[in-house]
């Protein structure tokens, strides 16, 4: 599904990713952990196509196609979804109708007709119940005035409605209270499927108790320095990153 090979990325003059190689097969959930500033969000942004990230070497293949050649909106339409570490507030743009426009963009790509307004609302309501979000979020501006945790839930709501094929969730668990974490985890689990892959960027192994990953990778200074099964996350929680950084140096 996703194949990243020897990826080198420079942003704002800084070399942030230095030969990152990673493969996420279809249907799997991979967690990426690593110290602050190691390049996790950079990786997420590069996959989503954010401008300003210069790929100096390497490749990214998604579904056999050169992902880096696509503009961000086409990546989204082909099923790539980024849950932002810091979801963006867009006052004046309505939350639910952005969702509708996003869904219609995906459907258009799949040669499906525009979603029926009635069905759409029913769908959104159902997903909002799952996210324990109040109806009032329907009418508000995109993330406008949402609390940190509400923004994260809104990201997951979008993911649930859009049903991406590759979901990259950048620290969606940060800033969530314990109940919200469970809700978000349930949301992710409800989408787990054979044809869908996840990349979960997280600092906490707690999320991984609820969303059990197939693989855990450690990103240090722009490279994957260690991969393992979920027990690696527990080990990181115990030992921190220093031993790995030393190993990598």
């Amino acid at each position, binding site marked *: 599904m996703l194949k990243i090979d020897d990826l080198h990325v420079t942003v704002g003059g800084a070399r942030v990713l230095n030969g990152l190689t990673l493969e996420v097969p279809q249907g799997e959930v991979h967690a990426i952990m690593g110290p602050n500033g190691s390049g996790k969000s950079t990786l997420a942004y590069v996959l989503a196509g954010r401008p300003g990230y210069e790929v100096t070497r390497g490749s990214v293949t998604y579904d056999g196609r050169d992902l880096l050649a696509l503009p*961000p*909106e086409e990546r989204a339409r082909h099923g790539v979804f980024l849950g932002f570490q810091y979801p*963006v507030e867009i006052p004046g743009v*309505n939350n639910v*109708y952005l969702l509708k*426009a996003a869904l219609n963009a995906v459907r258009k790509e799949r040669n499906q007709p525009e979603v029926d307004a009635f069905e759409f609302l029913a769908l959104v309501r159902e997903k909002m119940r799952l996210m324990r979000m109040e109806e009032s979020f329907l009418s508000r501006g995109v993330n406008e005035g949402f609390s940190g945790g509400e923004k994260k839930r809104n990201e997951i709501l979008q993911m649930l409605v859009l049903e991406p094929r590759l979901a990259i969730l950048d620290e969606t668990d940060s800033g969530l209270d314990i109940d919200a974490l469970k809700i978000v985890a349930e949301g992710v689990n409800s989408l787990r499927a054979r044809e869908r892959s996840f990349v979960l960027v997280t600092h906490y192994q707690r999320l991984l108790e609820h969303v059990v990953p197939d693989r855990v990778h450690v990103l240090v200074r722009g490279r994957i320095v260690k991969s393992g099964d979920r027990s690696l996350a527990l080990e990181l929680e115990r030992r921190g990153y220093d031993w790995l950084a030393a190993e990598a140096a």
Partner: protein
Amino acid sequence: MSGDLTQRIAQEHAVAAESLPSAVVAHARRRRAIDALVARGLPTTRDENWRYASLRPLERVRFAPVQGNLNLTQGSLPSAIRGYAPIPGYTRYVFADGRLAAGASGPAAPQAGVTVHAPSRTAATLPSLAPLDRGSEPEGAFELLNEAFAVDSAEIEVASPAGVAPEPIGLEVVFIASASAQQGASYPRLRVTVAPRCQLRLVERHVSLGDEASFVDSMVDVQMHDGASIDHYRVQQLGARATWMDTLSATVGRSATYRLHSIGLGAQAARSTVRVHLRGEGAELALHAVAAGDRQQVLDQYAVVDHAAPHTRTEESFRGIAAGRSRVAFNGKIIVRPGAQGADSNQSLRGLLAGADAEIDVRPQLEIYTDDVRCSHGATAGKLDETMLFYLLSRGLDRDMAQRLLKWAFLEDVVSRIAVVELRTQIEQSLAGQIEELDALKELLHGRPST
């Protein structure tokens, strides 16, 4: 150069003087205006508050008023207003090249409590009005020009009939420009007085018939007595070749509230000077301005608010977009006089640069002569927010749509304050350009699906 121009204006005035109606402005007063204009000269872009204005078109203007009377009917109204019936509850007055066009105005009788008077008509058509005490004569160059040449005037007085509780009055005044500047100028003139505790809702529009390069010099005078309130919507949608010079002066009495919405969309070159005098204790102004420039348009606005009494308040917001090669400017000056303690003002001025060769300038200015005041301001000018744009793209919206959406959202907090739904819809349609797109945009913006 400016001197040559004022000389020519004076000559044109001398020729036309005889034919200018003294019922609109007395001859002596016209002459004083011309003398004052010659003495002070026209502004140039070297003048402090005129740097962004486009004054070049003045060279080619014939300043004498357009001759003749356009025979306007409802059917011949410009597309900017045709198809829109007068707003329910509003009486519409149409002026063509500065003269009342009764045939296009209506419904005939305005509500009780309002007197509308156009001196060009006989008193039989419209009831005459007792002379108003309007204080000082105008001082700005373009006000003087209007004073010297105006051929008609919309004189509005709102008062509550004795013993009747004041009810809000709704009026729509449409000024249409049709002639080219070589044929003559158009001098819209609007004078409003609102009696104590009376309320007025006023829609004032400036539009073109055809696409001549008209010269329009409008003058608006607003007098608000104690406790009066006005919702004033000013919409400038002149044709793409028109030049608009505009001056609005308002005096706001004790505990009176003036809500002024100014929407600038049209004209090749538009300059509006707004002077609001908060004269009585507790007088309030809310000024919400929107300007959307494209192509080579120049849209320049200068607003001076004078806090001359205690506990006066100003809330000012501006949202301007400069696309294409346009130039959009808003200069907002707040003065707090000695003795205006407890004055409170807030300015939020934002400009959006939407074209590589466009220019935008927003400038808050404060002049404070007393201690106990609260004045805050925020001013930003920049491009579309890249983070917002990327967020929308990452959700699959196409770039064009995402950009338009963000421009809309940018204007939205000011446009949404237009409380007259019919007018807001028209403005939104003009801003969106295309109606099919508008429906999609509207859904995204307001979450109110099109019906």
